[in-house]
């Protein structure tokens, strides 16, 4: 036996004394910080044992990821929500995260709904808006169910201009509003005149001007910008400085060419330039359009959506259709802006976790080490967060890279089986909204999805593909 001629080198899991006894005898040993898989739940472990090495699942996940990888997201235009978003009508408001009723909405989402109804002219005062929202006349629907995504409250109302991102490879589209900037903004639930006026300016000036420029450009390849921005210190969820700068470089010549009045041109460029997060509303639909292509592959255990509505966190899985698997939205751990306390924070909210789902955002923190100044922790933490995500993902990205890891591809494609068997939850890197409507962002930090989402998804997978 070959072993008898080798030097013994051991791995130990369980009783630590066994490892120490081996060391005392001069034998090298790795003692694992082992934990029971799936948090020790027998029912889940039994399912994992059955399907962990299933070649059909491997094949399905490969097909799904291939569709993601060969996707080509291109910003092609700007349209008006009611005209371009499928299933959108005058009485529909889209929101971030899984489905939710007015009664269960948290402060920032309610505020955004109120603001949107005022902006749409459906109400003159917040009280009127609230009454209308409660009346049942307004249909609330998740952005994700309409090929759309929205940061924070993520409210999209019929008149809002939206970016149109086209997946040239697969022909599908994704939509997202234009980023309003920081401070008092609708996505954090603010609805003062200042907010409504800005939205109107965006509708009347910003969107038409940008639309002309985008169309003149013949389309802007977002995948390339994301890949470059990762090399420049963004992770494109909580840090979009490089992405926004690159976008300006791409669009500026065409904005000039568009023949806009000088004052409008200056306002537009100043507006984009003054908002480090402008590109977030492009990195998100880019992620969405690529992941939508990977959705609905039978048997696939790939996560294609992670989204929060401020009350609940929901995920969707490629092989499980449009069902949401939800759990309570978690509190974010991070740094608060001066003057705010922990009790001011709203639970996790927004569709922006689509970035992590697509293999950047928190998964690419090692590419955006400077972000720890914003979310807390040390540079070493940032590296470790990314390293850990390789444990729960299926592939290394072919285009998005982490320079400090020797340009290793970002961890891409969350597999619900890996999340459960390794007890590692996806790492999300996000902003913190004030729990009351209209106050805005109070900080930024790190958060994980609730465990239940993945547990429910695995049980549903078993029911759908293995029967009872």
């Amino acid at each position: 036996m070959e072993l008898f001629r080798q030097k013994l080198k051991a791995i130990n899991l369980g009783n630590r004394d066994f490892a120490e006894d081996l060391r005392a005898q001069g034998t090298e040993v790795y003692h694992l910080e082992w934990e029971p898989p799936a948090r020790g739940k027998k029912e889940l472990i039994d399912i994992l044992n059955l399907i962990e090495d299933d070649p059909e699942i491997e094949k399905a996940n490969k097909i799904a990821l291939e569709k993601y990888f060969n996707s080509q997201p291109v910003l092609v235009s700007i349209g008006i929500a009611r005209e371009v978003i499928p299933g959108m009508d005058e009485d529909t408001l889209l929101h971030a995260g899984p489905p939710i009723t007015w009664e269960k909405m948290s402060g920032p989402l309610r505020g955004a709904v109120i603001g949107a109804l005022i902006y749409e002219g459906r109400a003159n005062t917040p009280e009127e808006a609230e009454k209308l929202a409660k009346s049942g006349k307004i249909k609330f629907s998740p952005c994700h169910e309409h090929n759309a995504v929205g940061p924070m409250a993520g409210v999209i109302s019929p008149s809002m201009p939206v970016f149109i991102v086209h997946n040239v490879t697969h022909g599908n589209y994704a939509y997202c509003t234009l980023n309003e900037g920081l401070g008092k903004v609708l996505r954090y639930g603010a609805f003062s005149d200042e907010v409504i006026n800005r939205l109107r300016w965006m509708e009347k000036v910003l969107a038409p001007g940008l639309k002309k420029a985008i169309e003149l450009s013949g389309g802007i390849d977002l995948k390339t910008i994301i890949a470059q921005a990762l090399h420049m210190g963004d992770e494109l969820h909580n840090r979009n400085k490089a992405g926004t700068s690159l976008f300006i470089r791409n669009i500026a010549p065409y904005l000039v060419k568009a023949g806009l009045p000088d004052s409008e041109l200056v306002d537009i460029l100043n507006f984009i330039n003054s908002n480090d997060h402008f590109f977030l509303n492009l990195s998100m639909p880019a992620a969405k359009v690529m992941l939508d292509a990977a959705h609905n592959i039978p048997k696939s255990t790939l996560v294609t959506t992670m989204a929060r509505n401020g009350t609940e966190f929901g995920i969707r899985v490629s092989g499980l259709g449009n069902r949401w698997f939800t759990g309570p939205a978690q509190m974010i751990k991070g740094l608060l802006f001066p003057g705010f306390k922990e009790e001011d924070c709203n639970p996790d909210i927004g569709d922006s976790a689509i970035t992590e789902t697509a293999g950047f955002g928190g998964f690419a923190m090692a590419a955006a080490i400077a972000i720890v100044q914003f979310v807390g922790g040390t540079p070493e933490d940032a590296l470790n967060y990314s390293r850990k995500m390789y444990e729960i993902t299926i592939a290394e990205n072919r285009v998005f890279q982490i320079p400090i890891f020797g340009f290793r591809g970002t961890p891409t494609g969350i597999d619900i089986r890996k999340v459960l068997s390794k007890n590692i939850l996806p790492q999300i890197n996000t902003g913190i909204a004030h729990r009351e409507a209209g106050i805005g962002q109070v900080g930024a930090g790190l958060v994980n999805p609730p465990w239940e989402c993945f547990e429910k998804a695995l049980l549903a997978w078993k029911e759908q593909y293995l029967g009872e």
Partner: protein
Amino acid sequence: MKKIIIKPNLYYDSVTLMRVSQALSEVPGVVNAMVGMGTDLNKDSLKNLGLFDEQVEKASANDLIIGLEVSTEEALNQALTVLEQQLTKKREEKGGSEKVYTGIEQVVNEDPEANIVLISVAGMYAAREAKKALLNGLHVFLFSDNVSVEEEIMLKDLALEKGLLMMGPDCGTAYINGTALGFANKVKKGPIGIVGASGTGTQQVMVLIDRFGSGVSQVIGTGGRDLSREVGGRMMSFGIKMLAEDPETKVIVTVSKPPAPEVAEKILSLLKSISKPAVVCFLGSDQTGFQGNDVVVVNNLEDTATMAVKLVNSKFSGTNGDQEVLAKIVNELKGKLNPHQKYLRALYGGGSLADETMQELLKDGFEVFSNIPLKPELALPSPLESRGHTVIDLGDDFFTRGKPHPMIEPALRVPRIIKESLDPETAVVLMDVILGYGCHKDPAGVTAQAVYDAKEKLAKEGREVIFIGVLVGTEGDPQNYQEQERKLKDAGVLVVNSNYQAVKLVKSILG
């Protein structure tokens, strides 16, 4: 005063938690302490201690439960401080820049030289990890029990397909390339290779081989169920073949209880087909003797070692211990017993040793009661109460639920030693003291203290009891054999180095 604390999703391995429980029990004023994960087994134990409420019932196997019964508020506070220290110890140890590994694959990816995995996690998780190890081309030493027969067969078939060792489940002892795995003694390198289905039985054999001047090439463990009809000796057959091919091994030894007849047949015919001589120990078997083609069957552990050493060293005399000296001591001791003192009370940590003792006594017509009886009618109604001649395996599940094995924590045996000593019908108290890796650092010290205490109490009653200790160990063991022997002798324990010798003594005292 009772206090129950639940810490959700905080996992610790059972051995760590047993140590925490032990540390808490030692806090003055603590009546009962149990720290464990929320498994059904632990919940039962908590219920038995009266430390049970709704939150305990609801806790999952991944929640940490701390149950405390204390006599004072001060004791509670002190216990909570100790708890915190004990629980954080582990987390601190892994601090610093040392890389943390959480999974087998993770290590394999980074270090292709890793070749064996030791698994001692709870049984319900063990098979999964063992399978992962095998799929990654690693040999497995699976200490965990509570793994199903189906899983055992699946794992062993997978191992055979890959040409890997699948030692266990429930494998306590192995010695590979001169390294002790689990509970094993440091022995000299030599020409005798062992495949063992019995942990302490294997330890006894390897220790005696060392004592008889020879040494060991490899010791392959199989787990206690390998020779059952279902498992069919899969790993023992494989182990024998590996030793047959191993140029360092000149003699092959197997150690087990008597297997199912068709399995015995399989093992014997395999050994007969191999050109190396073999000694087969079927503990307590009636069919002993030469089987042809250099294969001999023996039925006790000492004969196993003797026979094996004789095969490699024809000059070996085959005697162990100075019989005359012992006979003299026995006569002297016998004189000190009163007519009511008639019975043996044997308290074992090693299950195979307990088995051997019962087998040997049964042959001579002794009726021996036990918690692991040889016949159903010899079962003790309660393992806690002895009657007549009694042999107790303190390593049995009944005693080890939520507690460390007596080989790890001999202190758990102390109250029973005292109790049996004070029984007016007890003539002999027999105890094993097992040394080697995996075992307690000073088992003789703990046992000797119990004997001192017992003797003091007996003196007040004007009685003496004969204490016999079986010291299973070698000069190479980390505990220091001579010192351990001295501690026992100083306490007035009659020390022998072989369980078989101890049984002979018992027979001559009580026969």
